[in-house]
């Protein structure tokens, strides 16, 4: 029986999950910086346990159009990982990568695939740090992307968290290149059993 409960987690467990978030986001920044061959700064990620019903308000409200990139996890840890950003950030990433300004409505398969790749790199870096830290093998799927209302996209991770409790673990990070900020949110959603695997691998 899993012995972790997200609604009632002790400080030690929360700190560990937070630290995994920090390290993962740090690695993701390095990967991003390598990909675009330019310095990228990252602020200290904010890690939060949010009530499920507060979740849709994260990115400016449930009806705000956002980009969500989802990767499913298999192996010793099962679950999913999501990277979300607002429209402005998605446009900035496309701008940084492809050197042109395009409105989100005008995105073609070219821009989509650039965004998916970014999501893939960021999530991959995050997962590899988790894997290194814990010694757990994690297999990630290809990235899936959806551009829709924040509430609708967030319903996917929210449902997974909903099986476990009424709270979700969110890691907010901000990348900066020159003067353009890219705000992104990571949501790591291991299954309940996988939380135990993670914590146990760290001796907790």
């Amino acid at each position: 029986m899993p012995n972790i409960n997200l609604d009632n987690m002790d400080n030690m467990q929360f700190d560990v999950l937070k630290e995994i978030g920090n390290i993962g986001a740090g690695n993701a920044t390095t990967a991003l910086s390598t990909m675009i061959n330019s310095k990228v700064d990252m602020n200290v990620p904010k890690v939060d346990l949010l009530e499920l019903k507060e979740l849709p308000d994260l990115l400016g409200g449930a009806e705000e159009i956002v980009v969500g990139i989802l990767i499913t996890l298999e192996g010793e840890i099962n679950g999913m990982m999501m990277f979300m950003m607002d429209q402005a950030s998605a446009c900035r990433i496309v701008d940084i990568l492809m050197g042109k300004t395009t409105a989100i409505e005008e995105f073609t398969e070219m821009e989509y695939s650039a965004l998916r790749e970014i999501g893939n790199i960021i999530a991959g870096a995050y997962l590899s740090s988790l894997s290194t830290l814990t010694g757990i093998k994690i297999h990630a799927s290809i990235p899936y992307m959806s551009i829709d209302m924040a509430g609708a996209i967030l319903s996917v991770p929210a449902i997974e968290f909903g099986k476990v409790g009424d709270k979700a673990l969110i890691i907010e990070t901000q990348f900066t290149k020159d003067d353009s900020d890219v705000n992104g949110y990571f949501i790591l959603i291991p299954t309940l059993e996988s939380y135990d695997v993670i914590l146990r691998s760290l001796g907790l």
Partner: protein
Amino acid sequence: MGIMVKVGMADLNICSSPDALTTLGLGSCVGITLYDSVSKTAGMVHVMLPDSTKIKNNENFAKFADTGVDALIEKMVLAGANRNRLIAKIAGGAQMFAFSSNNDMLRIGERNVEASKAKLASLGIRIIAEDTGLNYGRTIEFYAGTGELYVKSVGKPLKIM
């Protein structure tokens, strides 16, 4: 003009004419609305998961299709609705990401819709309209005065059912 009452994720609420209920950005969750056209009582529940008996932490009734519908009916009856007059409209249950795999975790929208329909059928409540499935989010508004359900999606015309 009545007030618009917000129903959050894993949440339920009721209202009567001229007010309305709304839930914003419904994805794989399902919005189940019930209506008594005589007392003009409207109810809405935003369910996230099909079955409360499969989950350990199931205190939040509104989270599940089975217990959510029961809790909503109870609340509506207390407010003066007649159980035998209730009719249902449902929306949501989208598959937000186009997965190729048949992973159960990813078919949750479809399962939510199936469970909602099964629950309503077991109570003998007729579903007179639905806008479910596909791959996009929906904002719904349910008007107690008329029993009309408005469905709004990105880049699509308003649907009134």
